[in-house]
C-alpha cells in the first residue's frame, strides 16, 4: 500500500474520477495523476477500487495514457465491444483525416505522438499554400457536427481543432498563441487504426511507401 500523503490522496481522487468519467489520464492533461499511476502500488490501488465497479485500469499500447475498461465475461465483452466500435465509427474517420492532414501540412512523416505541439498559425499557412489541403480541410470541417461558421480557412481550422479538443486528442496549450498539445489519447486512436488496417483487404502499398521527395529530385 502506498503512503497516503495528501498529494497521493488528491491524485487518487483525480485519477479515479477521471477514469470513471470515461476520460483518459495522460502526462499532459493530468500530469499529477499520470505520474502517480506509473507507481505500481498506486496503480494497483486505483485498479482495485475500479474493480469493485466491474472496471479496471488499462494502459494504451505505447503507454501514453491510462483509461478504464470494463471487466465482463466473453459474451458481455462482445456486446460491449460492439457498442464501443459503433461509437467510434464517426470519430475515427475524423481523427484519421485530421492526423493525415496534420502530417502533410506540417511536413512531418512521423505519426503524431503524445506531446507533439501544433501551432495553429503554422498549420493555417501550410493549408493556405496548398489547394489540396484546403479541400481536405473543408471536407473534414463540413463533416463535423456543429454550427456552420464562416468558410475561411482560419474558421474551419478553429472548428477542427476545437472538435479534436472536445474528443480529447488535443489539449489547448496556449489559447492566445494558438498552440495545441497532442494528448496521450492519440495512442488509443493508433490502436484502433492498427486494428482497422489489419482488417483491410490486401492492397499493393507502393503508393503509401513511395517517398514524396524522390519525385522532386
Amino acid at each position, binding site marked *: 500500500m502506498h503512503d497516503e500523503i495528501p498529494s497521493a490522496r488528491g491524485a487518487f481522487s483525480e485519477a479515479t*474520477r477521471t*477514469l*470513471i*468519467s*470515461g*476520460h483518459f489520464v495522460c502526462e499532459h492533461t493530468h500530469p499529477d495523476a499520470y505520474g502517480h499511476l506509473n507507481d505500481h502500488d498506486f496503480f494497483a490501488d486505483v485498479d482495485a477500487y475500479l474493480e*469493485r*465497479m466491474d*472496471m479496471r485500469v*488499462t494502459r*494504451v499500447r505505447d503507454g501514453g495514457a491510462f*483509461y*478504464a*475498461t*470494463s471487466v*465482463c465475461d*466473453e459474451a458481455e*465483452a*462482445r456486446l*460491449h*465491444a*460492439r*457498442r*464501443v*466500435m459503433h461509437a*467510434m*465509427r464517426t470519430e*475515427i*474517420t475524423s481523427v*484519421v*483525416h485530421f*492526423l*493525415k492532414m496534420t*502530417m502533410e501540412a506540417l*511536413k512531418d*512523416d*512521423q*505519426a503524431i505522438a503524445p506531446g507533439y505541439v501544433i501551432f495553429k498559425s503554422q498549420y493555417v499557412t501550410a493549408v493556405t499554400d496548398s489547394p489540396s489541403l484546403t479541400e481536405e480541410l473543408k471536407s473534414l470541417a463540413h463533416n463535423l457536427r456543429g454550427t456552420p461558421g464562416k468558410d475561411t480557412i482560419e474558421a474551419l481550422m478553429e472548428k477542427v481543432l476545437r472538435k479534436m479538443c472536445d474528443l480529447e486528442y488535443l489539449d489547448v496549450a496556449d489559447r492566445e498563441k494558438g498552440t495545441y498539445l497532442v494528448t496521450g489519447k492519440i495512442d*488509443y486512436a*493508433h*490502436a*484502433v*487504426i*492498427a*486494428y*482497422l*488496417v489489419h*482488417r*483491410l483487404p490486401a*492492397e499493393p*502499398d507502393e*503508393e*503509401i*511507401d513511395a*517517398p*514524396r*521527395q*524522390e519525385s*522532386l*529530385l
Partner: protein
Amino acid sequence: MRSARETIPAHLRLLHGNEKAVIAAYAGDMIDDDVASPRDVLALIQANVIVENSEGVRRLSRSLHSHLDDVMRKRRSYRAGENFSGQVEMLEKIIASCEDAMRENHFERQCQLEDEFRHAAESLAQGIDETLTHLRAEVDNEFGDLPSFAEKSRQNQHYTKRVEETIDALALIADSRIVDRFDAQPMLEEQERIHRRELLDRIPKWRQAFMTISEVLGRHVHALRRVDPEAKALRRLSLHMRNNRSYEMPDDPQDDHIQDWMLAAMPLAIMTHPDVHDVDQEDMIADVVASLPALARTRSSKRKPGILVEDDDEPTSFIIRRPQWRIVFDDMVREASVERISARSVHARTQTGTSLDIWLIYVAATCAAARSEAGLRHETVIEPHGPLDGLLRMKDVVLWTE
C-alpha cells in the same frame, strides 16, 4: 503541344544558360545586367523561373526556391564523414614507402614522404574533428528537419553508418600495424611523433564523443522505428478511405480477439449533492442559496420613445420569471391532495427542463423544507443501483397532503 521530352531539356538548358541569374535570385540579390541580359530575364519570367511583382521586384519562383532549398539541405545533411579507413590505410602505405626510401637511401624521397605523412595525419585528424563537430550539432537538433519519413530513415542510416565507420577507423588507428613498424624502425622517429601527436593521443577524447553521439542516434532511430508502423498504418487507412468513400468502420469484432480498446468503459457521470436532512450542512446550503443569482426580471411596461429615464413617471413593475421546473413543482403542490402524486410521472408528462435525477432531488429537497407549513408529505422511493455495487438511487418521490 510539345511533349515532355522536348520541353524539359529546353527548360533545363534555359536554367543552365542563366545559372548566374538563378543563383542571384536564390540568394535574394538584384538581377541586373551583369548576371543576365534583359532578353534572358524576359525568357526566365516567361518560363515562370523568375516572378516579377507589380513594383518590379524580381524573385525566384516559389517551387524552384523550395526545390533548391531541399537540394541544399540534403547536401548539408550528408556532408559529414569521409573515408577514414581509407585514410588510415594511406598512412600505412606512406610508412611502407618511407621504409623503402630508407632502404634505398633516397633522402629527398624520405623528406617528401615525411611531409606527405604529416599532411595525411593532419588531414585525418581534421576530418575526424569536423565530423565530430557536425554530428554533435545534428544530434543537438535531432538530425535536422527533413520533409519526409523516407528521407529521414535514409539520413539515419547514413549517420549510423558514418558513426560506426568512424569508430572502426579509431580502432584501426589504435591497432594499426604502423605502431609495430615504428617500434621496428627507429629511423621513423619523426613520423611516430606526428602519429602520436595528431592521432594516438586524441583517440580517447574522440572515442568518448562518438560513443555519446552513437547513443543518441541509437535512441533516435529506435524512436523512429516505433512510430514508423503507426505512420504507415495511418496512411494506408487514409488511402483506403479516400479510394472507398463509402467505407465505414466495422461495428462488430466478429471472430477477432477482443482488444483492450474495445472494452473502454462507458462513462459514468459523477455528481454530488448536499444532504438536505443533514443539519451540519444547513449553513453551507444557506451560503450556496445566498450566492445564487437573482431570478431574471422583466420590466412590465416600456418607456415611451424620447423620454429620459429620470423623466419616466410611469409606474414600473417587474415580472419575475420563474424557472420551468419551479412552475411545474408549484402546480404539482397546488394539485396535491390525499391522492398520491408521483413526481416521476409528472416529469414524464410535462416539460420540467431538467433531467429526472435532478428533478427528483429538487422535489425531495423542496418538500422536506416546506412540509411543516403546508402539511405536505412526501416519500422517496429508493432502489439498489446495481446488484453488487452497494449504491442506492432515488427512483421516485411521492407527494400528498394530509
